């Protein structure tokens, strides 16, 4: 008959630096604690996560010397697991998890509208190239273009700010765009993301 070392002895050995004692404790109570967690959350992955968090707490408490041995190692671990299960449900209540199925993927409906890193780099490059091209425009055209595109001003506001008529502002904008296109075509610049 195999001699089973008592939990309290294993805990003591672990606190004294014997790592193997922890492995024995985990393996001894693995099924019982995992089954308890699984019976509440009904999900294998979440069970693994909570089991892991439970023993992380156990390890920290034992290593810090905060555990008082009263011969109740398993009930203590079960209490930690129980509290973490409650935390899990509390967290899920605040932020419910939606899992898609094979037929429906939530990311086909909603998406992150932010650019990925590669596209962001390309966009920054295009913006900087475009700035250089705009710098080459005649001053009056550049002024109108900057006000319209970057400051989102209406042509009425532009005309009031520059002291020219709306038609002149429109004309300058038109020539600014024509000139930009000319330079882009002439130099074979590609400004697309």
């Amino acid at each position: 008959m195999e001699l089973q070392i008592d939990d309290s002895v294993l805990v003591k050995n672990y606190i004294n630096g014997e790592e193997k004692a922890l492995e024995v404790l985990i393996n001894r109570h693995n099924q019982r604690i995992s089954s308890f967690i699984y019976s509440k959350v009904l999900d294998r992955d979440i069970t693994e996560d909570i089991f892991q968090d439970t023993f992380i707490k156990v390890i920290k408490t034992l290593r810090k010397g905060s555990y008082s041995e009263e011969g109740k190692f398993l009930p203590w671990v079960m209490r930690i697991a129980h509290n973490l299960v409650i935390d899990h449900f509390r967290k899920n209540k605040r932020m419910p998890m939606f899992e898609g199925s094979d037929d429906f993927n939530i990311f086909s409906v909603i998406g992150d509208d932010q650019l990925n890193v590669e596209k962001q780099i390309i966009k920054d490059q295009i913006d900087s190239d475009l700035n250089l091209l705009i710098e080459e425009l005649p001053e009056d055209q550049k002024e109108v273009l900057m006000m319209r595109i970057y400051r989102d001003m209406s042509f009425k506001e532009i005309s009031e700010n520059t002291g020219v008529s709306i038609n002149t502002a429109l004309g300058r904008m038109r020539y600014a765009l024509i000139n930009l296109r000319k330079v882009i075509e002439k130099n074979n610049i590609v400004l697309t993301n």
Partner: protein
Amino acid sequence: MEKIYSDNQNACKLAKACPETVQFLMNYSKSLNIVTYNNIQFENNLN
């Protein structure tokens, strides 16, 4: 006969954390270092 109470069947299944999780915990334990300074305990992960 038709099965009833089928919704909660899974609750009776025995679960067990996989060996990788146990190994992770062992590694975590080995890498954890607690330092006490002025009665304050600091956790270090020496990985």
